[in-house]
């Protein structure tokens, strides 16, 4: 069964003949895949990711998580699904600046409430340790390098052990070394059996993914240099 499915996803904005961000996209994503979504600027890559991540509602179509439709879910139910099943990594780390790395990671764990007290703390510590941030876990984002911040953001995305991790230009703000490191992490995460879907401009890095999806003008297009099945 697909971990995540897009069925005829369309997203329009504006009244009447408004702008089409995403047009009739159907895709299946299975657990353990590392999928990169590529395409020129304005092709609808991020819009598709936000739809897949239940942050935005499609004008038409449906997103299925673990085979279950999300079309008729309330905003609260969508939030609960995001909390438990989806992890997000953004281009700009988007950490809460007043909180330490540890607090940023432990926040979604506490909100979900599956782990409480020390168990939640241990989970956050273990994730930060795994990402090589054991020594920096009590630093605030402002005291960390760009690469460290993005690793904290990845740790936060993994905090509730979600089966799906979505990343929007996760390396867009990083130097080559850190970008390669982040992609290596994504490969590791996918190897654990999770689905990783990342939007990227970096075609060199995209080649490291197990699958590529290419968008042009909001619609699926053949991946350059690769024949469509």
């Amino acid at each position: 069964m697909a971990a995540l499915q897009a069925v005829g996803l369309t997203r329009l904005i504006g009244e009447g003949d408004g702008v089409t961000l995403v047009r009739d996209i159907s895709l299946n994503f299975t657990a353990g895949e590392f999928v990169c979504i590529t395409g020129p600027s304005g092709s609808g890559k991020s819009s598709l990711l936000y739809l897949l991540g239940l942050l935005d509602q499609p004008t038409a179509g449906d997103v299925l998580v673990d085979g279950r439709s999300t079309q008729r879910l309330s905003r609260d139910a969508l939030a609960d699904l995001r909390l438990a099943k989806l992890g997000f990594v953004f281009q700009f780390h988007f950490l809460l600046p007043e909180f330490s790395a540890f607090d940023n990671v432990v926040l979604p764990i506490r909100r979900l409430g599956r782990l409480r007290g020390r168990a939640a703390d241990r989970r956050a510590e273990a994730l930060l340790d795994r990402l090589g941030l054991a020594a920096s876990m009590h630093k605030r984002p402002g005291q960390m390098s760009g690469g460290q911040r993005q690793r904290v953001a990845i740790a936060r995305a993994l905090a509730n052990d979600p089966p799906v991790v979505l990343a929007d230009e996760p390396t867009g703000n990083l130097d080559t070394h850190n970008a390669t490191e982040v992609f290596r992490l994504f490969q590791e995460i996918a190897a654990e059996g999770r689905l990783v879907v990342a939007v990227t401009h970096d075609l060199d890095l995209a080649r490291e993914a197990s699958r590529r999806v290419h968008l042009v003008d909001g619609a699926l297009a053949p991946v350059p240099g690769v024949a469509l099945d």
Partner: protein
Amino acid sequence: MPLALSIALAHLIGRRRQTVVSVFGVGLGVAFFIGLSSLMLGFQRDFIARIIDTSPHVLIRDEYRTPRIQPAVMQWPDQPVVVHGLKPRDEVRGIRTAREILAALADLPDVVAAPVLAGPVFLRYGSADRSATLTGISPVVERRVTTLERDLLSGSLDSLSTTANGIILGELLAQRLGVGVGGTITATSAAGVVMRMTVVAVFRSGITTLDASNAYALTKRVQVLLNRPEVINLIRLRLADAEQARSVAAVLERRFAYKAESWEETNSNVLTVFVIQRAIIFSTVGAILIVACFGIFNVISTVIHEKARDIAILKSMGFRESDVRHIFLIEGLMLGMIGVAIGWGLGFLLVELLGSIRFNNEGFIRAQGFVLFRSWIHYGIGGAVAMVASILAAWLPARKAARVNPVDIVRGAA
């Protein structure tokens, strides 16, 4: 620590200066509410207590609230009877059925009645002269009806009976005449009777108008001076419960037809001023609190504006709209609570400061400083109003924050 609380705390600590200004705004509002309420109610309660203490609770006067019904009207009650050229009968003023009324009042429980004759007189001592209201009393009954005996600064109530033509003067009246106990003054009535009277005592009620214009003598002497033998024009009543004065007055007026005034009616002009005074002060303090709450609104709106990205992050993580709303409501609540706590402290200090100021107050009441009414109710009301206002001030921006669309913010940041 609960999640929403820790996030709210981090936001407020991150905006320390605005937070401090807001909580002090609320604090000052609450403090002024406590201070002014204490001052205003202290004065009003003291005045009312003195009125209840020193004056009769109900006064039966030798007059009617409405003109008496004419016999012709009584004869044809359903007919349009018009009587022309009516004027009050030329008769000796006074309560005609005083004996029967007093006998009836004697049967009422918790009521003490004192018949008196009161009227205007002109007092002269040397070259000083003052007009005054002279009330004819019986010392035995007077001490059961008013606190005159307790209020005497010098002399005694009984000396009215032991001194020929004795008179008791209010302290301010005596001062203005320049006379003391033992002095002999001349009293002249509107009837033209002149009487030399000896000051046997001086009283101080604390109410300026009474101390400056009231004098007491034996009823018999006053009847002679006013040339109204065997007449009384007032029956003064003291009740066990002064709060019942209005209803007792209404019952007595229906029963005896004479106008019966409760102490509230007698002092209605002052009590009306009190109502207006309360309205003005509560509106002023209310305005202070509202301005303070605009501060809270401003802080939370600013935090929400600045933290739009954080809100988007929280929502993308899976925080519900209600979680986000709670965070900002908690911020409003915390600003309100800290503000109220500061306000309580400042309010207490303000009241103590006002209480320590000493000066001679010669207004409605005479006192050496502010008369304050300290009550936890002021703290409760001030705190509750500030809390409700703080929550309301936080509610609108919190609702707006909960509706933030994370995609709009994330796109904007990219």
